[in-house]
């Protein structure tokens, strides 16, 4: 009997042992397999969102590469204005283009971004914030933080199949500024005695200058962000959005630049960014010789030299790309965000186009670049470092003071427009 019992006990133990092993193994398999799959999926989701962020970065930085706006596939007149009056550069790092582009994707029921990852297509969407925008404007004046750029947008990306997993990114505006090369610069026209030249340098610091004039869209964005701002003369309803903002007072201009973490462009920095250095390879020249033209090192050449020497000189269509003067109005309309009158640093509108005001600390009564479409090419205003004065308040001719040699009677009492741009100094860039 005992023997029989013992024999059964061994069977019993073996059965129990086997059941426990089977149970444990199945538990392990059940538990670990979905977990491992879940984490692998989680990693993939991060990878997809990261890829989507790079795709979004491409759209942000390059703007309308597929010419959707130009070909009127995107209806963005309210957000961006008339496509015929702006160039592609206008849409780069432009928050309103991002809004318009993804609104269009939404309307046409297309996924915002389609990402291929491990041979699978995944749809990624931009989160719409409470103000119905796909982005939040980010500037140092709005948010505090180490990684807050002077200007940019924040977006949140989420997967269609798992909207809870979200990637928040800040896209910095890397399109609108040019870096002033570190070197010794001179300010103002060349003096007869070069020892009296006003020199300065930007070694060991970065100075970044807006490539283009501040646009009406920029000002509207500022107003939208801070409804307490009251601008005396500005109205977005009337203005083409991509055109330069030309109805602000100098105080309002300075406040706008501050909003972007910048300051109004200084006259000596404008000179530095536009005078063409005689030898670019030598950043420490002893003598700084400068030509009055941003496009030539030779002062006795170019259409402006000819026009200022000979009253009968006929300005051609192609001359207007070097300086958009009064003579150019008959050829084509002026466009902001163009590459006209580009300086060696890449800033547009060195001569001609709109009048532009600066902060001139050393000589406050020389704060205006009068070179503009108000004056013909024969006028002396069309020379680098030729300065006039604007009181920064009104737009009537009496608010301006031009050099005696400049024939201002041609202005015929019209209200004058003054544009501006900003600059900033940085330790980081």
């Amino acid at each position: 009997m005992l023997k029989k019992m013992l024999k059964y006990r061994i069977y019993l133990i073996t059965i129990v042992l086997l059941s426990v092993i089977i149970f444990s193994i199945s538990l392990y398999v059940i538990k670990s397999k979905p977990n491992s799959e879940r984490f692998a999926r989680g990693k993939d989701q991060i990878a997809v969102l990261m890829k989507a962020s790079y795709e979004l970065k491409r759209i942000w930085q390059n703007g309308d590469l597929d010419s959707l706006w130009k070909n009127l596939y995107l209806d963005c007149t309210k957000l961006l204005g008339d496509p015929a009056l702006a160039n592609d550069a206008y849409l780069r790092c432009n928050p309103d283009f991002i809004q318009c582009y993804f609104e269009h994707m939404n309307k046409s029921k297309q996924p915002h971004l389609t990402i291929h990852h491990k041979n699978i297509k995944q749809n990624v969407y931009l989160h719409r914030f409470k103000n119905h925008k796909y982005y939040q404007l980010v500037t140092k004046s709005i948010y505090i933080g180490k990684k807050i750029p002077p200007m940019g947008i924040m977006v949140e990306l989420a997967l269609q199949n798992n909207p809870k997993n979200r990637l928040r990114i800040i896209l910095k505006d890397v399109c609108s500024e040019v870096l002033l090369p570190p070197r010794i610069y001179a300010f103002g026209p060349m003096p007869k005695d070069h020892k009296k030249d006003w020199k300065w340098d930007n070694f060991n610091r970065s100075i970044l200058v807006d490539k283009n004039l501040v646009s009406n869209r920029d000002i509207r964005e500022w107003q939208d962000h801070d409804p307490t701002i009251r601008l005396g003369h500005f109205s977005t309803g009337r203005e083409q959005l991509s055109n330069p903002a030309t109805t602000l007072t100098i105080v309002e201009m300075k406040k706008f630049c501050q909003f972007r973490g910048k300051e109004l462009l200084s006259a000596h920095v404008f000179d530095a960014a536009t005078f063409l250095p005689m030898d670019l390879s030598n950043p420490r020249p002893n003598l700084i010789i400068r030509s009055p033209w941003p496009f030539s090192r030779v002062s006795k050449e170019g259409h402006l030299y000819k026009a200022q020497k000979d009253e009968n000189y006929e300005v051609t269509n192609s001359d207007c790309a070097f300086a958009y003067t009064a003579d150019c109005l008959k050829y084509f309309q002026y466009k902001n965000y163009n590459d006209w009158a580009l300086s060696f640093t890449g800033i547009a509108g060195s001569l001609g186009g709109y009048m532009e005001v600066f902060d001139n600390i050393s000589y406050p009564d020389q704060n205006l670049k009068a070179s503009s479409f108000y004056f013909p090419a024969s006028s002396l205003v069309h020379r680098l470092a030729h300065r006039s004065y604007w009181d920064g308040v009104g737009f009537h001719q009496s608010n301006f003071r031009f050099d005696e040699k400049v024939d201002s009677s041609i202005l015929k009492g019209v209200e004058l427009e003054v544009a501006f741009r900003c600059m900033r100094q940085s330790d980081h860039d």
Partner: protein
Amino acid sequence: MIKISIMFISLILSSCFDKNNSMEEFEYILMKEFLGVHEVFLPTLKSKEGSGEIIGAPMSWVTIIKASKMKSSVSAVEYICVGYRVPYVNEHNNQLGILKIHKTQINKCPEYYPGEVSQSGITYLVLNLTQGILNFKLMLASKHLSKNIEIPLPNLPDSKEEVLTYITFDNEDNLLPLEKRTARYGLKPGEKCFDINSKCEVTKPNICDECKFGSFEVAGGSCKEGGVRFCQPIDCGRKNMPACLRSKKIHNEDACYQDSPAGFCQEGLNTYCGNDGYLTCL
């Protein structure tokens, strides 16, 4: 027989309920946690020459990474520490290496890493950080598997990325950091955001990133750390105000003296060296 059976069962059960994470989970957590990191500190560690394998006193915990990321606001920083228990493997011992992640609100990593997220069974670990990518190279004993984990850290200042300035990932509702300015918080215009004395001793660390409208550096300083900085707007060049910067010296040559060309002022005013060691306009 019964004893053997019990030991066998408990061994199997313990393997089922082991708190050690799978490699996938550990990698996922590293990615998820480190993506938003904006500062990484790698302590100097003992390592084998040539291979770079992390070594140390067997069975001791060493902190191999300390990183910080902003959490609910810029003032609430979360620190992430990664600890490594150095393996102790010889003919008598088979104590393999363990990696653990520890999150804390205080700026200090623990001496000993208690039961947090971990990856065990490590025989070999190499760690490096280059161009915004944190790279773990490790060998797992169980599978004789060598694993390379690459964690992108796009928020680091030395990351090649210049457009995407901040990336953070989460599956919670509150995706931060982005703290809106309020009137009561932050530096005021005209306030010093970096201070340095004439002996080049920093008396206030640089917090100029917090200035609402950017910052302004005074003229006349000659320290390699730069001159005193104020939050903008500052009317430089005006009477009794700091001179505007004309040239920045960093080679310890004295640029703070009367009529110094290191700064410039409005017409009719001259530069003077003020008591604070920078140029002012009078």
